[in-house]
């Protein structure tokens, strides 16, 4: 395509001038934040301007986390005890200590269920709100529908130089834009923020390049770039769009505040320690910094929840750190006054089988894929704390009370971000497609 004009008639030039112009006085990061806050959502009354999605890839067990079944027989109950939470009558599994204590700050949904029991399909359903259009296998990486992150990038992203959708350290299987186009693909920031030399790729100068030399290079670029720009906007000159993006990128790189947002090393040691000195904890912390800078959607991809074997051994090691990092994220956002404007969700593609199993070839017990029940954590963006939505049966087989669908979940996320889940988007064939086929949000969480 040689010609680009925005559908709404606003040229990028205008949008950018408004954006960057308003920022010069206050510094970029706060300017970006101000812009993020001034976004006027088109859809339902939005509480949240950003979303942090903690994706527990593989499908976390609901038993050993948020929905223990202490009264079930031992082969269902598992090895872990249950503990009380801040909400009376609600128990968690024994390692979710901090999240149990903090339940008044967030909500727990125990009754989402669906019928896609393999990773490829479950990931697609929970990540996009649409089941895969054709049956797909367990290992599939498929995309038939835009993901929440890409939709948020499209609806909430601003031409302010910041990528609108981050995914760390990788993209989830179905986390792409599908027909919305590559523009709304996640900006993947690999590498480990827990490592010493970590930086978010591409947003800061190359390691060995001095700032002085960068500045002189940039001046040099202005001199060597002599391609004639077409002045008439109707000509749709891509070189003009190119300049705008260059300017935005340059602003981002040269703004001290923006650079600080990406630089996790700016964070005091105490805060870094509090989140936990591990990759996941530091990604949670980085996601908070990105949200502070005005990024609308951040996925923290957290792999390895597919515990077919060694369930208890692995979780004994993993859950305390995980519990700490997520509880700290919620608490930290709250202390900074960001929890109202930041939605935090944690989930995987499904729950796990009620009856403990030992697969052939394995000598440690585990649980297998189970889409009839799962637990989903949701905090912030006006989510009433201490709410527990729905319940599973006595053995954790199935959501029985207030049974909800992935569509309800994704609609809730959109609703909170001010995106109308019933909005019609168009596939390349011109087919009108609703963002979510059942746009009913979970009313208890609104």
């Amino acid at each position, binding site marked *: 395509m040689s010609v680009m004009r925005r559908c709404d008639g606003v040229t990028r030039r205008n949008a950018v001038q408004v954006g960057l112009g308003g920022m010069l006085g206050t510094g970029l990061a706060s300017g970006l934040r101000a812009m993020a806050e001034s976004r006027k959502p088109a859809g339902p009354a939005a509480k949240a301007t950003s979303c942090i999605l903690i994706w527990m890839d593989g499908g976390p067990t609901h038993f050993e986390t948020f929905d223990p079944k202490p009264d079930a027989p031992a082969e269902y109950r598992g090895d872990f005890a249950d503990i009380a939470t801040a909400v009376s009558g609600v128990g968690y599994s024994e390692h979710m200590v901090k999240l149990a204590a903090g339940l008044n700050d967030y909500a727990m949904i125990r009754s989402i269920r669906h019928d896609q029991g393999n990773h490829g399909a479950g990931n697609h359903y929970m990540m996009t709100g649409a089941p895969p259009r054709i049956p797909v296998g*367990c290992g599939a990486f498929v995309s038939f529908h835009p993901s929440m992150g890409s939709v948020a990038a499209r609806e909430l992203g601003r031409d302010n130089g910041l990528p609108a959708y981050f995914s760390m350290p990788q993209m989830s299987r179905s986390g792409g834009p599908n027909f919305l186009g590559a523009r709304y693909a996640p900006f993947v920031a690999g590498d480990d923020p827990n490592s010493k030399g970590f930086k978010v790729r591409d947003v800061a100068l190359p390691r060995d390049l001095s700032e002085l030399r960068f500045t002189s290079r940039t001046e040099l670029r202005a001199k060597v770039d002599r391609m004639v720009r077409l002045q008439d906007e109707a000509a749709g000159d891509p070189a003009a769009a190119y300049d705008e993006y260059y300017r935005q990128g340059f602003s981002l790189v040269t703004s001290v505040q923006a650079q600080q947002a990406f630089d996790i090393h700016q964070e005091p040691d105490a805060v870094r320690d509090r989140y936990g000195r591990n990759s996941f904890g530091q990604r949670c912390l980085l996601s908070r910094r990105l949200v502070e800078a005005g990024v609308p959607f951040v996925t923290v991809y957290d792999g390895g929840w597919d515990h077919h074997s060694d369930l208890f051994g692995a979780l004994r090691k993993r859950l305390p750190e995980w519990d700490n990092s997520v509880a700290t994220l919620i608490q930290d956002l709250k202390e900074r006054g960001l929890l109202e404007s930041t939605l935090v969700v944690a989930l995987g593609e499904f729950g796990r089988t009620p009856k403990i199993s030992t697969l052939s070839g394995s000598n440690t017990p585990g649980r297998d894929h189970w889409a009839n029940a799962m637990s989903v954590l949701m905090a912030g963006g006006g989510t009433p704390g201490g709410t527990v939505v729905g319940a599973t049966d006595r053995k954790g087989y199935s959501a029985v009370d207030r049974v909800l669908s992935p569509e309800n979940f994704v609609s809730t996320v959109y609703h909170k971000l001010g995106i109308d889940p019933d909005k019609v988007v168009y596939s390349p064939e011109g087919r009108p497609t609703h963002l979510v086929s059942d746009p009913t949000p979970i009313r208890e969480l609104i």
Partner: protein
Amino acid sequence: MLLRRLPILLACFLSCADIVCGQDVPSVSGPAVSVPAESLVDFENDIQPILTKFGCNSGPCHGKARGQGGFQLSLLGFDSQQDHDAITKEGRGRRVFAGAPEQSLLVAKPTGLVPHGGGRRLEPGGSEAAALLQWIRQGSPRRAPAAPQLQSIQVSPAAITLAAQQTQQLTVTASYSDGTTRDITSLSAFQSNEAPIAGVTDGGLITAGGITGEAAIMARFLGRIAVCEVLIPRQQSVPSGVYAGLPRNNFIDPHVWSRLQRLNIVPSVVCDDHTFLRRAYTDIIGRIPTFEEVAAFLGDSAGDRRARLVDHLLQQPEFADFWANKWVDLLRPNPYRVGIKAVFNYDHWIRQSFHDRKPWDQFVRELITARGSTFRNGAVTLFRDRREPEEVATLVSRLFVGVRLECAKCHHHPFEVWGQDDFYSFAAWFAQIGRKGTGLSPPISGSEEFFFAGARGSVKHPVTGEVMTPRPLFGEAPAADSVEDSREALATWLTSPQNHLFSQVMANRVWADLMGRGLVDPVDDFRGTNPASNPPLLQSLGEHFRDSGFSLQELVRAITNSHVYQLSSLPNETNSGDTRSFSRHYRHRQRAEVLLDSVVQITGIPQDFQAMPPDSSSRQIWTHRTESVFLDTFGRPDPNQDPPCERTGESTVVQSLHLMNSEKLYSDVVSDRGLAKQLADGGRSADELSVELYRRIFSRDPVTEERELVRGLLEAEGAVRRQVLEDLIWAMLNSAEFAIQD
């Protein structure tokens, strides 16, 4: 964003009903539908237009796939039989009730007498409600006795020239089998294919915008479509001698000049040699020219140097890889689902076909009739990937005849003649593909699978259950049972010289690749309501392609030899707003592979791609799963996406940031094995260095100021020669002149 034009139109189309739906509005205004009291009311002629006009059968309401509130109508009323059944036979007889017509839900709901989720749509006592009541009273017949059949609709005027901001009211007339006509303007829906050029209201009033150009206004009534062509020329006329004096390199130029003449637009001047050089290299073989290639061309003063360059490029193996790279985007599936070996072989088959210069009809025939093992004949992977006849049918119709049949899978195409009959009859060509071996078992799917002409299998109409006989979309095909494999008959129809769409669709794709925009745009959406911007040119181009034996090289040669291809991108006073008529070259950002391969060529540091031999170019990568932050950043398709998708050439801030800050690019520029070091060590003069850089990176010689700039930097006090060169390389790679094709 123009790719999204159709969806936007669709949005207008379906959302007018959407907005009203659910709100309690008294009724939609507009001239009334009235039926004389004593006359017989006919369902098709009189009732369906009411249901359509008031949005009852629109996508968001009862026209959606599962209907609304248990009441389902065919989308936009394309299926009168189904709708009549839904009204008279379903709903336990409550929808129409001849004994007490007012109590029929068909009337009571839309008039608001009974609560209606869609609100009040009709005025109680209004003429539409009266027509419904009268029809129910008469026993709700499917057809009234002797009711005439709708034969056609006409829009008047059918073609018009307007000045900017001028308006024109359209009139739509229906003709019936009994010779009668009826003014149906108020019952018709209208839509423009180029709203900025000429918009149209719900009532059929056209308003010309401020842009010079042509638009097609569609009027639709009960599945019939009529089009009014609107021409909005520039006000100031151009002396005809201007056009007579323009070069005519081949058959393409006169077609473009005559369109420009109609619009009073003068084409831009011809582009510089160096611009042509870079344009031809990146368009034909997908990389920029090397230092030596620039030197050779700029030193060539023969009059036919451009044509000879095109001939030379068409001979390069890179031509095949580059054009194959475009087609693998459209065909090649995700190996995690379909299997690595099957996809690798498929990629190889496509690529080898381009290297073999296989005529396009042969390529398509071999593909859609492919048989054998996924381990031996890569082409069969098409059928491993697309396992249902419906899935193959949509791909084949879209890619090779430019018809988007997908809509017709579930309902009649809202803007075209295609219905479910057409879709499933077309899918039936693929009903009897035999298969053996192991199917998909992601994420490995590693097994071998065989495909052959089977004897079993059928495609059924989803509503009637009827077994469909294979039928082409138009024209005649050999009978499916006259050949061993029904796909052979389909291939014969598809690639027949009489199938103009087959050659035009490919010609249009190649035109779009070289010219920045299709004559039909989007390139795979050929239909009466989306006409080509220059129909005679499209026709000639298709014929030229066909008559050349479906030779891709010949098509590329014809287009790149035309004067139109060689126009400058810089506008003159008449054509800066032209983005459709090819009066100037349209700039575009180079695609991901072109940029990456050019970076490699300039820096001298190869990329190391997974699962590829050393020194492979990115054009040669056999799957989008091969990791490359650079290619992802510049918009290659998401490898997880199913089906694969066309890419867009948008620029993003992420791209700017990548060129600016990528550690990889930085280290390649400063590498001891790289260009800067090589040039710094060579003992060249400042002037020689400036020539080296400009030829290698911008494919041209530096002008005086640029030579002086380079000399100044090199001779500045304390300047480190290698650092200066590194900075220059970086600055040039970050310039629009590098990334944007001029």
